[in-house]
């Protein structure tokens, strides 16, 4: 294939990856920004979203469109409830102490993943896209659903932006993020805000999982990749900044798309991971908001 179409395809792939990644990483970023905890189980919420999408769409086997609509509403709700439970049963009891929380969310990762293995089984199962058509470019064809996924992810990002910057909840959230004690003193129900933010973060991951599942398949081990990529994005983008997260998602998504088309994808991943480690060491400001403790 010639360079032009080649680049176009890389760009398209990168854009799809970037949008879905942005939604996933936004969830991680919100949770870190407001609660100052690193949620290692974030990828499992993504996986749960995909698995629940399989379950919900299979309830309406003859109506893929409505099945998918059910999934896009239902899956995040269920995942949100699981997250609220995890917050109440585990994280709150640890008083959100950063290192203990990481260990606990590692535990949560295994619990969720293995619970899905028990209930859902070890197989990868496909979900039919709500609308499937194929876009034929002069040089290659492309999945139409991918454009739908881009659109849906863009809507979600817009909604998230509106929610954080223009609503009362967003204001309360930012106040809590800015100074937990003061917010509490001003009557902000911090516990409730934390539970809500944790659930919101999980729901964003779940939505990303629902969006991706017609492209991949629901499988109990699918959470690790989005987790690592979200880490990379959130760290490079800067943890306190939604804009930074989204920007970084695009940089990572598109550059990964391009690099892995022209070079070895494994090499691309090695470079990205090392870059993240170095960014975290040498440019921690705006990443972990100054000192991490």
């Amino acid at each position: 294939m010639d360079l032009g179409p080649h680049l176009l395809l890389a760009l398209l792939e990168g854009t799809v990856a970037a949008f879905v990644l942005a939604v996933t990483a936004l969830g991680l970023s919100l949770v870190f920004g407001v609660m100052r905890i690193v949620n290692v189980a974030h990828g499992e919420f993504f996986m749960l979203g995909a698995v629940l999408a399989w379950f919900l769409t299979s309830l309406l086997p003859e109506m893929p469109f409505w099945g998918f609509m059910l999934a896009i509403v239902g899956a995040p709700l269920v995942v949100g409830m699981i997250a609220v439970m995890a917050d109440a049963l585990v994280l709150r009891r640890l008083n959100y102490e950063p290192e203990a929380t990481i260990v606990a969310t590692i535990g949560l990762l295994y619990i969720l993943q293995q619970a899905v293995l028990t209930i859902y089984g070890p197989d990868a199962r496909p979900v039919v896209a709500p609308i499937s058509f194929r876009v034929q470019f002069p040089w290659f064809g492309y999945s139409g659903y991918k454009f739908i996924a881009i659109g849906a992810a863009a809507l979600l990002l817009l909604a998230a932006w509106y929610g954080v910057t223009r609503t009362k909840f967003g204001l309360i959230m930012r106040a809590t993020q800015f100074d937990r004690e003061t917010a509490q003193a001003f009557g902000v129900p911090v516990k409730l805000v934390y539970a809500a933010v944790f659930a919101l973060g999980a729901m964003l991951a779940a939505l990303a999982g629902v969006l991706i599942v017609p492209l991949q398949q629901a499988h109990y081990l699918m959470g690790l990749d989005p987790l690592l990529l979200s880490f990379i994005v959130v760290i490079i983008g800067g943890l306190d900044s939604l804009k930074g997260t989204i920007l970084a998602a695009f940089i990572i998504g598109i550059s990964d798309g391009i690099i892995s088309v022209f070079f070895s994808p494994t090499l691309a991943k090695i470079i990205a991971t090392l870059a993240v480690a170095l960014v975290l060491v040498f440019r921690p400001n705006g990443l972990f908001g100054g000192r991490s403790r």
Partner: protein
Amino acid sequence: MRLRLADRRIWGLHLGLIAVLFLLQFVLPDYHHTNVARILVLATYAMGYNLLVGYTGLLSLGHAMFFAAGLYGAGLSIYYFDLHPVLGFLLGSAAALVFAIAVGLIALRTTGVAFMIVTMMFAQAFYLATLYFNSITRGDEGLVLAPEARRFAFFGLDFDLAEPVTRYNMALALFVGGLIVCLMLVRSPVGRVMVAIRENEERTRMLGYNARDYKLLALSLSGLLSGAAGAAYVLLFAYMGSTFAGIQYSILPLLWVLLGGVGTVVGPLIGTLLMFYLIDKTSEVMSSYLIVVGAVLVLLVLFFPKGIAGTLRARYARWMP
């Protein structure tokens, strides 16, 4: 030199433990015989991890890198260059040491959560590298050391590492070596400084200690011990593969150490032993046996943060190192 009561107790406890482990090989059924040999190697890995997390207070999520550096350092040199196994072991350990120092020089500029993520990212890059260079490592599929490569003469004695008795006692020797290093270290002036850094780094600095150097030292020793365990693993069990560099092998020592008791010398062995058999037994009843890893982690941080040996120490035996 006169031995104080605490010293007598400490040496009594650990020599007793070593004696029990030595005698165990004569009564264990075959299956558990091999298991305990494996556990001893993994417990050495956990002890190495504990030096950093337990005694210096630095939580790493990337120790699989050091274990795998030892594994590949020893394994590949023996596989490709027919190195003498003892040399291979030393080379593997040295490789882990080099990685630990390199990671330390960079990652120790951070603390806390950032340190956890940085170590995890380095280890992930290392894992990906084992896949990327799969023409050498054979990636996921891995490589096997031939039986001939594991038979060697050393100081006039012949060893065959495939022989269960030899394997058990080699594993025990490794463990005892690690145990003695840990015991000497944590009771030494250097160990005292490491504990001080864990408790309050700023204060330690203001007592005239360059905390960075001590942290680097702790990380290097921790990496060295983890690497020695990795090198021993490939020699004793003949297989190396990128699974051992994966994130799960960074999480397991954390689990073992938390369960056994952070910052105790015997804790890592207790934790590794219990967890090994817990997973083994669970896998007999259900296929999603890794759920116990998750459940134990969550329960430990919630209700039992000191772990087994740590709780015993707090309740009954303050003198335990």
